[in-house]
């Protein structure tokens, strides 16, 4: 036990003496939260739009006011000719054009039905979809403000509620993603580098010849990074609560429990990498290419997994962070309890057991 303590102390020396890495480890989550929170956001605000209003009546005015009062749109011009639309798109001045026909008010009055044309610049399909959604919602909102005065039979008015994230903010999506990314990076990359460093320096041989048990080497290597990860986790949560106004709705205990499990998963991956690589550089490359990329791409926080081709969807199942991401979203954003995440937890647990067993076996074979 005392030997273990000696070893852990040594590991902390390594961690604290390497100021640059330490700074990176703590700076990274902060930078990522701030970047994703304020710079890289899926929300599109203040898009310039063109409105061609042929109706020029009270109803069209109301609709235009509604559109311009939302902070999604900024009206570039509102009494333009439809011939100007294409030119404006080509010049890149506008992202969306809305045409209100001449008979707008009459159609509403007499036929209970009116048309509005929405034209979007689909050269960026995501933005086009998002903007048309915003516009459709606003128009629907205007429509429902009319309907109480009208008695129209058989009309179905969808009442849309955006659960858990009514303002459609980006933070609920990326905070869990950043958590997965940071934990993965710290645990997988740093542990594998820390172990491979001993091999590269030749000190691993000495440790193996000593009575110190190889399993203890692993445990002592893991402890400092486990601690760093927990600190990182706390930093991310504090930032998300106080800077991004994203409270933790579910149980903090459950959140930390699941995170600890995920940290273990990442540590075992780091171990496997450390057994198959011999230099710090290749360990770093293996962690970056093997873990960072799949984590970023296949977890679902950047690109929805559901839209991916089937082979990629299948592949995403073996990416541990995908399951961790679901757990965190459920607990943190939706405030659900363990009953909602037991399946994902079980999958993660199974992965950890397999990975840990594999890495321990590999570790013994390779080094001893």
């Amino acid at each position: 036990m005392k030997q273990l303590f000696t070893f852990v102390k040594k590991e902390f020396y390594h961690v604290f003496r390497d100021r640059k890495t330490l700074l990176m480890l703590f700076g990274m989550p902060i930078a990522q939260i701030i970047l994703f929170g304020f710079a890289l956001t899926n929300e599109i605000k203040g898009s310039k739009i063109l409105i061609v209003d042929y109706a020029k009546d009270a109803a069209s005015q109301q609709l235009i006011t509604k559109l311009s009062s939302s902070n999604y749109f900024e009206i570039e011009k509102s009494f333009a000719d439809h011939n100007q639309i294409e030119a404006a798109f080509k010049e890149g001045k506008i992202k969306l054009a809305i045409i209100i026909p001449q008979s707008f008010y009459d159609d509403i009055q007499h036929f209970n039905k009116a048309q509005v044309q929405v034209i979007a610049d689909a050269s960026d399909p995501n933005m086009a979809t998002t903007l048309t959604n915003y516009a459709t919602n606003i128009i629907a909102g205007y429509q429902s403000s009319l309907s109480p005065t009208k008695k129209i039979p058989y009309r179905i008015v969808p009442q849309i509620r955006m659960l858990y994230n009514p303002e459609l903010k980006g933070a609920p999506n990326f905070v869990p993603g950043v958590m997965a990314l940071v934990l993965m990076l710290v645990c997988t990359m740093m542990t594998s580098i820390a172990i491979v460093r001993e091999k590269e320096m030749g000190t691993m041989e000495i440790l193996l010849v000593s009575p110190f048990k190889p399993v203890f080497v692993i445990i002592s290597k893991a402890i400092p990074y486990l601690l760093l990860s927990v600190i990182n986790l706390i930093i991310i949560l504090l930032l998300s609560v106080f800077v991004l106004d994203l409270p933790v709705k579910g149980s903090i205990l459950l959140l930390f429990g699941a995170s600890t499990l995920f940290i273990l998963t990442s540590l075992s991956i780091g171990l496997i990498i450390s057994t198959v690589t011999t230099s710090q550089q290749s360990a770093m490359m293996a962690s970056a290419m093997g873990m960072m990329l799949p984590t970023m791409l296949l977890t679902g926080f950047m690109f929805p997994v559901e839209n991916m081709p089937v082979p990629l969807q299948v592949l995403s199942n073996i990416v541990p962070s995908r399951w961790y991401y679901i757990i965190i979203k459920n607990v943190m954003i939706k405030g659900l309890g363990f009953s909602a995440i037991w399946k994902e937890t079980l999958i993660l647990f199974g992965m950890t057991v397999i990975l840990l067993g594999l890495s321990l076996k590999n570790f013994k074979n390779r080094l001893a």
Partner: protein
Amino acid sequence: MAEPVIKTNKLIKRFGNFVAVNEISFETYPGEIFGFLGANGAGKTTAMRMLCGLSAPTSGNATVAGFDVYKYPEKIKQNIGYMSQKFSLYEDLTVTENIRFYAGIYGLGNNEIKEKSAALINQLGLQNEVKTLVASLPLGWKQKLAFSVAIIHQPKIVFLDEPTGGVDPVTRRQFWDLIYDAADKGVTVFVTTHYMDEAEYCNRISIMVDGRIDAMGTPASLKKQFSASSMDEVFYHLARSAKRSAD
């Protein structure tokens, strides 16, 4: 004569069809400096790993410090020291931290560690460098420190795997003073080297060729046996017959 510290009898290690170590038998005694020579790929490292309890032999018998290599590799580890050409100190730790770490993982008590590290620092004349990071020590000092750390737990045997690689002759000579000092205190020194002048410093030498021990004896007796004027000649004479190429 005293009980042998290392005793092997027809020790064999096979990797598939490849016989890395082929029926080696030898004994070493307390306080002896035993030179373990051989070209690259002759099987020195594999033999050493078996003696350190790192890999199990395919067949044959061996005891190290009185313990069987098959049954008690952990006991062996407690009784041996090891130093390789890559040194074995942590560059980002200070002199004291390195000493305490290695003493610590061998399970020495706190008081013992304090005493030992003070004695060691005095012996090496490192009083002014205790808080210096090992990275900034000169190579010769690092090497001496590494050796002293390797025997801090007073092992019966210390294995030195090409300990003086890349070091100038003066520093090498000083390093050998430390080795003699340890041997005088009864530690068996098992050393591999490529420097034939160092081979002359050993009490007894074995020369491995293609996994076998082809010659063994004191430097003087070997030179006489092969009617050579230096260990260099003896080594070339034997190594020429090797069929295995160096890896």
